[in-house]
């Protein structure tokens, strides 16, 4: 067998990180840019080569496993750095390296004037390494390495402009949310290991049906924990609030990490674990419901946001919801398909937004934009393509993937989920066109200052936009519906998802399918028309609607007060508990406890102060008390 050189794909960005650390200060901006982009570009080339080789194999054995290195093997516990290329990871790998490369190129122009240019590319390359490790990993442990790595890089990049307190705050929030998710992921992983005895995908998936009864509590718990991890990483209910805040990071980061690649890791993980999820129908149902709920919920919030990047962020959350919805109804292929097309058009949207922000000297508020179509022709053109794509207008990429998700949901009997998805699609079309109209159409609301500096972006930013626009336009054609024996994408994915429940669902009759397509296109058209009426034709209508739906608007504008709720429910109690405990143990501050809020600890504190004859005495007392408690416990036995 030809050596496919899988390990070199993640190794290239890592090597760039190393070089950047070692000689980065001598390279200058140009050198750094070449190094960073070159490494990712080369990784893309290697990825293409590996995938071509994969495609050359007969369909039945389209998996390449490459054991690069044994990490540790002790008894029956083994972990190795092994890479797996199958149709699923091939798609992910191409998307990550391809879109990643374009965004790297774009960043060269976007970050040109930033003093921390080198640091930026350092983090970005590190992220690429972690993401590729995650995608190509052959076992859960290595995937977790990548999983943590991308989280760390995301954290570093959100707080990239740490001088801004909001950026540091956002970084922290992303971190907290992701830790909650990681907790689930680690636990799920450990449970699987404990019950099934392996963390390697193929072995685990082969053992799982023998170890777990379908629908048993054990597998349901394990998969739900894994899904908790996915909700953290992919910003689903209830852990989605970090993603909109993450927009504090530089825009290319939002495009790469918080739209195209990292946030889709959760979807990838669920798809990767589909043999496990299929054993736990309850978990799968949860995935579908959470996905659908998030899709609708985030879309409504997106209706009223005024920050261009925040609209896109909520849109990302909503689109990720669609992907989970697909996975939940068993249509993993459709989920990954949407993941791919979404990577194209959402990256494009973010980069376009970045181009707008760049042109307007860091203005992000939609209320101070407008009429940019003529002034930023390239940005406008590409953005229009992306907006149409995400709205689901045929024959652009988003149409095919979203339609497939909806029809699959319908076919598998989840008509409620389908309906939610349809409403969500209409809302998506509405808020995306609202964004488009507010930014590019209508009268200019620019400040004088911004008007003065207005300029189209440099070629290094425009070229990636154009490439992505092309992909957004034609990328969906690999998934034309209603072809004999499934479409191209489905045929490519078949070796992975063969036998997955939803895939095998009875195919819909052409008439039903056409009806569904017509309905979803109609929903999109309705959304677009609504936006057109509200924001372009009758500028007063928006205000009147706001007035009429005051309560709803307020709720949506404040993101349903979810942030405040979390603050009150989780953050504040944990903070207080920690403070209490600290004071409780640290007698020096015992006096300060009187000012404490909670009354529960008051008694203890008073008791403690009784013992405050000397520190050592108190310590010895606790020591003895501990011994006594254990003694009593032992005596009871």
């Amino acid at each position, binding site marked *: 067998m030809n050596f496919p050189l899988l390990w070199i794909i993640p190794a290239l960005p890592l090597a760039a990180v190393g070089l950047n650390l070692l000689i980065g200060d001598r390279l200058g901006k140009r050198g750094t840019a070449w190094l960073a982009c070159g490494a990712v570009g080369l990784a893309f080339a290697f990825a293409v080569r590996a995938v071509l080789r994969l495609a050359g194999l007969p369909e039945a054995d389209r998996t390449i496993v490459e054991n690069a290195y044994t990490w540790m093997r002790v008894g029956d516990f083994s972990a190795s750095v092994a890479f797996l290329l199958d149709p699923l990871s091939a798609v992910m790998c191409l998307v990550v390296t391809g879109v990643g490369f374009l965004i790297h190129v774009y960043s060269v122009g976007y970050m040109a004037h930033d003093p921390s240019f080198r640091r930026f590319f350092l983090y970005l390359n590190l992220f690429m390494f972690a993401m590729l490790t995650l995608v190509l990993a052959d076992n859960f442990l290595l995937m977790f390495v990548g999983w943590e*790595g991308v989280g760390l890089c995301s954290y570093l990049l959100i707080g990239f402009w740490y001088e801004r307190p909001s950026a540091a705050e956002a970084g922290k929030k992303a971190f907290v949310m992701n830790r909650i998710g990681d*907790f689930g992921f680690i636990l799920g992983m450990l449970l699987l290991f404990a019950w099934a005895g392996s963390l390697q995908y193929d072995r685990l998936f082969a053992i799982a049906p023998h170890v777990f009864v379908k629908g048993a509590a054990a597998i349901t718990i394990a998969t739900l924990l894994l899904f908790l991890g996915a909700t953290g990483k992919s910003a689903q209910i209830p852990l989605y609030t970090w993603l909109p805040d993450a927009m504090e990071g530089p825009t290319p980061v939002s495009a790469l990490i918080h739209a195209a690649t990292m946030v889709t890791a959760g979807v990838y993980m669920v798809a990767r674990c589909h043999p496990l999820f299929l054993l736990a129908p309850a978990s799968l149902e949860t995935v579908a419901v959470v996905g659908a709920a998030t899709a609708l919920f985030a879309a409504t919030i997106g209706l009223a946001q005024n920050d261009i990047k925040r609209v896109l962020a909520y849109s990302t959350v909503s689109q990720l919801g669609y992907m989970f919805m697909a996975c939940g109804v068993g249509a993993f292929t459709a989920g990954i398909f949407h993941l791919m097309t979404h990577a194209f058009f959402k990256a494009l949207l973010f980069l376009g937004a970045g181009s707008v922000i760049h042109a307007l000297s860091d203005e992000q508020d939609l209320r101070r934009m407008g009429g940019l179509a003529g002034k930023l022709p390239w940005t406008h053109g590409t953005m229009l393509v992306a907006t149409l794509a995400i709205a689901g207008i045929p024959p652009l990429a988003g149409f095919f993937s979203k339609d497939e998700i909806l029809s699959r949901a319908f076919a598998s009997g989840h008509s409620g989920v389908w309906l939610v998805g349809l409403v969500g699609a209409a809302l998506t079309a509405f808020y995306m066109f609202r964004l488009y109209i507010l930014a590019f159409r209508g009268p200019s609301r620019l400040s004088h200052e911004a008007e003065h500096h207005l300029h189209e972006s440099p070629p290094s930013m425009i070229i990636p936009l154009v490439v992505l626009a092309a992909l957004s336009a034609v990328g969906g054609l690999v998934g034309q519906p209603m072809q004999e024996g499934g479409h191209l994408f489905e045929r490519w994915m078949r070796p992975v998802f063969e036998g997955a429940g939803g895939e095998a669902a009875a195919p819909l009759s052409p008439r039903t399918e056409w009806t569904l397509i017509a309905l979803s296109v109609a929903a999109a058209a309705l959304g677009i028309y609504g936006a057109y009426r509200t924001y372009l034709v009758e500028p007063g209508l928006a205000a009147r609607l706001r007035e009429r739906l005051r309560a709803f608007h307020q709720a949506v504008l404040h993101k349903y007060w979810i942030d405040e709720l979390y603050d009150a429910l989780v953050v504040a109690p944990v903070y207080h508990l920690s403070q209490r405990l600290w004071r409780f143990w640290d007698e020096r501050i015992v006096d300060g406890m009187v000012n404490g809020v909670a009354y529960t600890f008051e008694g203890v504190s008073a008791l403690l102060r009784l013992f405050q004859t000397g520190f050592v005495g108190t310590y010895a007392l606790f020591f003895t008390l501990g011994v006594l408690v254990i003694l009593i*416990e032992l005596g009871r036995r």
Partner: protein
Amino acid sequence: MSGVPFLLPVDWWALGAVIALSGGAMALLLLEFLPHGPESNRAALVSLVTLLAAGASVFVVRDSRRALFDGMFVHDGITVFFTFLFCAIGILSVLLSWDYVKRTRINRTEYYALLLSSTLGMVIMAGSNDLITVFLGLELMSLALYVLVGFRRSHLESNEASLKYFLLGAFASGFLLYGIALLYGATGTTNLQKMTAVMSDSPMLENPLFVVGALLLVVGLGFKVSAVPFHMWTPDAYEGAPTSVTAFMSAGAKAAGFAALVRVGLSTLGAVRTDWVPVLSAIAILTMTVGNVTALLQNNVKRMLAYSSIAHAGYVLVAIVAGGRDGASAALFYLAVYSLMNLGAFGILTLLGRGTEERVLVSDLAGLGFRHPGLGIAMTVFMLALGGIPPTAGFMAKVYVFGVALKAGLVPLVIIGVLNSVVSVFYYLRITVAMYMEEPQAEPTHVSWAVPGALAVLAAVALTLWWGVQAHALLDQAQRSVLGGM
């Protein structure tokens, strides 16, 4: 004459480390007769050579297994593993102390002599197969540490820390000794092997003498490893001690306490596991939780790391609770990794500050990452490792410990452990955040660069990463050590 031969046959190589360390300590004291300047490196050099010699002598006989002095001291896999570990800890501590003691004006020969004696005590603890020797080793280690903690006589906190540590240490020793006496009363022997044999003959579970004795033994050792609720001395002692001593004791004393616990757990207590699992589980849960939650709001890095070390004791206790050879090897593995990360983190603190000043607040670290990139990266590596984030060694250690615990069916313990390790990352990353995302104060912290100290930190970084990637090498070692037990 009686039947006991006057001199037992002794394998001198197997005792090599003990001989080298005691010889080195005494040689240092004798060297005081020859005059030397206050900036002399002589003592540090001698201790370095001594520690290397000790490590080398064990290396020569690393594969032989034997019991010495009628089973008082055994030379087996666990002894070899821990002797290497203690020598490594000693070497790194000497390197860290090298300039720190000069800077803080405590560069005295006795400092190094006590350091070597303490290391000797640790080695004896690890190699003891008899409760008397365990106790003597523990006392030797502790006595030297009490003095080392209070070595900065002009520093009020150092005095206070020393006194507290001493008083509570004596208190705990009382418990330990009483426990040993009760165990002797119950079984008629202090030898662990014989004790196990006695127990297998007649079930001891009903004998309150034995149960209470074993409990007090665990309490005494629990004090040394700072398990909750016997942990309260830890933050004060760690904070007040000279930072180089903190580094040494946080790694060494804890590892030594666990070495004794592992041995006791593998032999004597192993037989009555079911009785101990609930008690030790409760202690482990408390230890992890109290350590981590209290660490969250600390502003003094030394104190924060002290609480963190309490939490880590909890993780090792999880491995001890899991029991058996797997648990023991997980504990060994974890301890080696933990010692390294902690020495590194405290080692960086020894470099901060000018002269006798201490710069150990979180705010003192602000902006350090940019002014001293090397230091920043090293500290970040240690924090990530302590937090258990891949690909550092800390991650593999946690994975293995939790994996073993899961296999032993300790699901709730693992859930709490994972939750704790998730929480712990917050305060570890706070340090990283301070280094990279905060502006330094009016007077940025001065870094007193010193070649030996930097070397030690570099070695710790390299090993932390190396063992993260090459984990199976160390893990193999740990497993073989446990398998090769007597």
